[in-house]
């Protein structure tokens, strides 16, 4: 299916939403207005958004600690995401989850995860449900390069392969697991090569190219939806910010960061649409404005939302 203009504009919208959202998050943190920590995905918007958008409406997604672009890409409501970040009652988790646990199981969002690699096994289980219940849905499991050294990666890909489960393991390789560069945490060039250990396809893509991301995931979803089993995709990308709120970034050079900033996935998508005459500068400016407005509204919504009542602390431990 060729990418429609509508889809592309929506993608552009969500990528901008994600960017604006995270810039705002950074702003909140810099002012000590938010409790806890956060992991920004600025620079990874194509990887997080375009991948989710390539799914069908009812497909499932499991996100990571660096999950804002992912959940915004999935289409969760920016108001409730922002409210959750601020720990408000109206947030997706009623303030109990925060940045690292934004989730909406009802719509198929299995949640961001504070455990590196925590989403692998959950995704395998969710894919088992889809297979068993014959829903025709697939699971997109986000993970980072560093997480592929966890035992859970290995166990999960192996089991998914044997059971031919409808799950896409989608690795956002942003070159670092926290401060540890990929050449220090593994002895191979492409993580996609690890697919061979499980007899499944492994694909490397440019994670900063929204079009390539979209088309690859679309095909992968087809593949796994048709019963051919899981697939491993490595999306090469880069995070512009530090690992989390406090990171001196001694492990990388300013030049490297600048180099990647030049590969801005949002600008790139914009350029693509203009060069291919899909949309005009004005149209795109308008989309950006809309995204900015959406963010403003979300912030307003969140700030004006009530704090959860302290008595709710003991609610919802058990069903």
């Amino acid at each position: 299916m060729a990418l429609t203009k509508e889809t592309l504009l929506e993608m552009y919208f969500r990528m901008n939403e994600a960017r604006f959202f995270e810039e705002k998050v950074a702003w909140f943190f810099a002012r000590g207005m938010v409790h806890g920590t956060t992991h920004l995905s600025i620079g990874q918007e194509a990887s997080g958004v375009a991948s989710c958008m390539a799914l069908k409406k009812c497909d499932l997604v499991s996100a990571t600690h660096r999950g804002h672009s992912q959940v915004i890409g999935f289409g969760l409501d920016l108001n409730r995401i922002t409210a959750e970040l601020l720990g408000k009652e109206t947030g997706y988790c009623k303030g109990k989850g925060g940045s690292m646990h934004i989730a909406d199981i009802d719509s198929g969002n299995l949640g961001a995860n504070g455990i590196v690699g925590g989403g692998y096994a959950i995704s395998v289980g969710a894919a088992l449900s889809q297979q068993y219940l014959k829903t025709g849905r697939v699971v997109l499991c986000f993970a980072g390069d560093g997480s592929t050294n966890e035992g859970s990666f290995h166990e999960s890909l192996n089991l998914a392969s044997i059971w031919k489960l409808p799950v896409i393991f989608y690795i956002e390789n942003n070159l670092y697991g926290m401060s540890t560069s990929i050449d220090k945490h593994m002895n191979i060039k492409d993580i996609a090569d690890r697919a061979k250990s499980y007899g499944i396809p492994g694909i490397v893509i440019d994670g900063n190219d929204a079009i390539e991301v979209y088309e690859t995931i679309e095909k992968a979803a087809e593949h796994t939806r048709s019963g051919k089993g899981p697939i491993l995709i490595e999306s090469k990308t880069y995070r512009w910010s530090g690992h989390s709120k406090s990171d001196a970034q001694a492990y990388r050079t300013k030049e490297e960061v600048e180099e990647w900033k030049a590969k801005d996935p949002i600008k790139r998508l914009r350029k693509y649409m203009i060069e291919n005459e899909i949309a005009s500068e004005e149209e795109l400016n308008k989309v950006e404005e809309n995204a900015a407005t959406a963010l403003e509204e979300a912030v307003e919504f969140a700030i004006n939302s009530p704090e959860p009542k302290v008595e709710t602390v003991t609610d919802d431990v058990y069903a």
Partner: protein
Amino acid sequence: MEMKEMTYKDAIRLGMSEEMRRDKNVIFFGEDIGLYGGAFGLSVGMLDEFGEDRVKDTPISEAVIAGAAAGAAATGLRPICEMMFMDFVTIAMDNLANQAAKMRYMFGGKAKVPMVMRLPAGSGTGAAAQHTQSLEAWLCHVPGLKVVTPSTPAQAKGLIKAAIRDDNPVCFIEHKLLYKEKGDVPIDEDYIVPLGVSDIKKEGTDVTIISYGTILQKVMIAAQDVEKEGISVEVVDPITLYPMDIETIIKSVKKTGRAIVVHEAAKTGGLGGEIAASITESEAFDYLDAPVLRLAGLDVPIPYNRNLEAAVVPGVDEIKNAIYKVMNR
């Protein structure tokens, strides 16, 4: 109630099978549970009845077994998964404690994780330190999990059914030494042993013993022995270890004025402390004629040699001595 005599092991299988017949969303997976019928032969025949879609052998991968159960449970199935030995839950603790147990709360009450993890536990089989542990105390320290353990075949059937029907992650601890124990089991398919209700296994007036699992049998023998000497023992089996029905226990202790907790797990950090402290800090304190005693496994890894292994766990004589001790005060 119509009854049939069967073993603890068969009762668990029966309970699982009935629930799988009743609800097609109940599936079962683990290592060698299919054709092999499980390391203890517990699930023999289930593959034949339910087929490969519902009785699924896994690779030796405990972490993903637990995590996949959580993921499947959160998305519409009611999986039963098995750790071949409870000791291997050490490999699955992240998925069990950080994912399955916390998902609902972390997500503001929106997830439901109706899974059962079966955990064969305990020593006495000569399997040495890595195949004999009783780790229920760990699990009871994880809000979001429920922890249950049957001590008779009837309980085993009714409790596994209740666990499967429960909408939360339930750790179902089985006692390997009880697998071959026989008892009458209700054949009624609606027979359920509800979670969170302690069972007064034997009434008495002088001392309350709280115990569960394999060692409960020794407690019963000791209780009968001292009865002949005029000491009347009330025995309470909590069945659900977390969240525990402590009220029934407290009521019993208020009546008897004395309490002993007996378990097989290592004493330090074991549930004995939890139960003893709960009794002592309750209104039963004012009725206590003696301190609450704990009788538990030694603080050692379980040794292989038969005599050493037996020495780790309290025997009937030690239980009787504990009874004498609280009575003599």
